């Protein structure tokens, strides 16, 4: 957890008036919120609302064109080096090399993050992939690939988890297996993109609703109705 010199915990994420455009097209405009350590924000919005752009800005992979981004006490992009290795990203792509086995992929990421290789083996077993750990990723089903990607995202015990539809392609057994790693009980602050309003609200402390790149909703989860979320997709 990020802390000040006095030992007070800093917000995991602070966004102030963040904007981002791709050429003429504005993807995000005036996004502002703060997320406490260990808290979860569920991000809702229709396709093209700016959810993935937001996630990539928080991961330090995209620069905001306006506003201020502070992640785990590090102002991005200037202090990005301070946040590296402390964020776990599970995006649309599994970020795994298709011709390497699950074990080789995780071993590679473990080395980049200075993590013991035993941690990779432990995670593979926990998500029920031990029997396929020596198979190339390209031979795995989508659900299995998602499980491997989740192992990759949490391998270095990140303080902030950025999750884009983390349960996509997972069967009920798979979802139950990964829940201790990426669920609310896992510990880190989470930014969770979901299209399942019920499940997203159940998982969240806060709700961020995006409509056309604008911040349409920012509220505690208990104050947000299902209809409010569904209205974002109308």
């Amino acid at each position, binding site marked *: 957890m990020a802390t000040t010199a006095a030992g007070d915990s800093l917000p995991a994420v602070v966004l102030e008036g963040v904007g981002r455009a791709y050429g003429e097209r504005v993807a995000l405009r005036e996004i502002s919120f703060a997320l406490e350590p260990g808290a979860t924000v569920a991000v809702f919005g229709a396709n093209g609302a700016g959810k993935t752009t937001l996630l990539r800005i928080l*991961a*330090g*992979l*995209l*620069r905001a064109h306006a506003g201020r981004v502070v992640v785990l006490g590090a102002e991005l*992009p200037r202090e990005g*080096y301070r946040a*590296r*290795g*402390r*964020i776990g*990203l599970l*995006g649309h*792509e*599994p*970020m*795994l*090399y*298709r*011709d*390497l086995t699950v074990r*080789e992929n995780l071993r*590679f*990421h473990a*080395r*980049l*993050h*200075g993590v013991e290789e035993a941690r990779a083996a432990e995670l593979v077993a926990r998500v029920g992939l031990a029997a396929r750990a020596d198979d*190339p990723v390209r031979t795995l089903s989508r659900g299995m690939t998602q499980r491997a990607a989740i192992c*990759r995202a949490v391998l270095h015990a990140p303080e902030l988890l950025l999750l884009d539809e983390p349960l996509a392609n997972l069967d009920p057994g798979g979802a139950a297996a990964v829940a201790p790693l990426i669920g609310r009980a896992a510990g880190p602050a989470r930014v969770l993109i979901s299209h399942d309003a019920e499940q997203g609200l159940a998982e969240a402390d806060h709700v961020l609703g995006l409509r056309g790149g604008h911040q349409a909703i920012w509220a505690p989860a208990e104050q947000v109705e299902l209809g409010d979320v569904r209205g974002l997709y109308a």
Partner: protein
Amino acid sequence: MRATVAALVRKDARLELRAFESVPAMLMFSVSTFVLFHFGLDRGALAGDLAAGVLWVTLLLAAVLGMNRLFLAEREQGGFDGFLMAPVDRTALFVAKALVLFCFLVAVELVALPAFVILLLQPGPGQALPELLAVLLLADAGIAVVGTLVGALAVQTRARDLIVPLIALPLLVPVVIAAAEASAPLFAAGGAEPFPGRWLVVLALYDAVFGLLAYAVFDFLLEE
């Protein structure tokens, strides 16, 4: 940084051994070109400047194939994102990729050079082999450094196949000139002539200058 470079090189070596995407293509291109020259020039053998020119232009164009694919897995399979989010020195990626491209070139030359000698060169380099190896290693280092830099730049664009030759070939003209000048006397028709060592110095200087330049700017190429 050494551990990161080792992890990246090991990963790329594994990917190449599994997928055979770069080295076989570079090798096939080189050998096919030598075969085409063998029949196209309709000569029993080449020597001197012509032999050196054919060898270096062929190797350079084969290297372009490797440059095109050097960062493809990082781009298409999320390797860039994974690397950029890791707490490592980003220059490690440059060092690792340059080492990988250098190894690819050496692997290609292990087969392509004997093919060149058999198909086009009479007599072979014979006693001058150590000098030829020195030229090859220094030229490969220059090609690897520039190729890595250009490959990283080009992979971010949609016109990757166009950008790599467009930028890399003009930048590598000094390497071709120096390598061809240095190796031409080694391929002389009457046997190897005295070796012009100054061209080795030119190659070494080129490697050092572009190595430092690439080291300094590579971090910025990875930024969005």
